[in-house]
């Protein structure tokens, strides 16, 4: 169980290798990588800035990770979330879950993402070519996704 909030990029292959090195109790590893979409037409994005609440971010993600560990038999888990200014195609977030069987790994990864989206104090601002930055609205679908874990 580990959480990192960082400006730097992450390397998917290296993170998974480090998390599962020497583990023979793991049979299933699920990763989720969230990336900046470029948008199209009037919604085209030049860059995205992620603001966060230092201190609270780590606490909230750790809380969600502990909850995932209480619900599923995970051998290992990792959450890395970036902040700062990103370009289309750049990585934003990485979730890795490892378990003996695939169902636990899949469900825990989805659970972590659903809670990250609605609980971790990050805010996205998008800037397009020739338009001012605008704060991304929260999606109702993200809040609705939580109901399946109640």
């Amino acid at each position, binding site marked *: 169980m580990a959480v990192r909030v960082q400006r730097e990029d992450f390397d998917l292959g290296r993170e998974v290798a480090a998390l599962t090195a020497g583990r023979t109790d793991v049979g299933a590893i699920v990763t989720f990588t*969230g990336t900046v979409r470029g948008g199209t037409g009037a919604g085209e994005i030049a860059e995205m800035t992620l603001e966060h609440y230092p201190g609270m971010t780590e606490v*909230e993600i750790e809380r969600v990770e502990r909850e995932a560990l209480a619900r599923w038999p995970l051998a290992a888990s990792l959450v890395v979330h970036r902040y700062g200014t990103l370009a289309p195609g750049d990585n934003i977030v990485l979730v890795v879950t490892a378990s003996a069987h695939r169902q636990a790994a899949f469900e825990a990864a989805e659970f972590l993402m659903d809670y990250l989206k609605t609980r971790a104090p990050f805010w996205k601002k998008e800037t397009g070519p020739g338009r001012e930055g605008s704060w991304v609205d929260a999606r109702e679908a993200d809040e609705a996704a939580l109901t399946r874990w109640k």
Partner: protein
Amino acid sequence: MAPAGSSNVKLLYFAWVREAMGRAEEELAVPADVATVADLVLWLKRRGPEYEHAFRRPEVIRAAIDKAHVKPDARIAGAREIAFFPPVTGG
């Protein structure tokens, strides 16, 4: 030192709340009769145009006390740090 009957609280603002306020944080002496987060928002809105602007739609503003999410009815007694921000959009 906070005036008698009040407590010093650090207030933090994020995203468009921060932009509307024109600052990321400040320390305020909050009167003891301001009991909940909702009370605090009403009290702040009377402090000046930037507050009125930032908190004009309190229903879309979220709050955290000492780095934990809280509802508007949460009591603020003892809080060291209260943050206001829009619904989060990370991940």
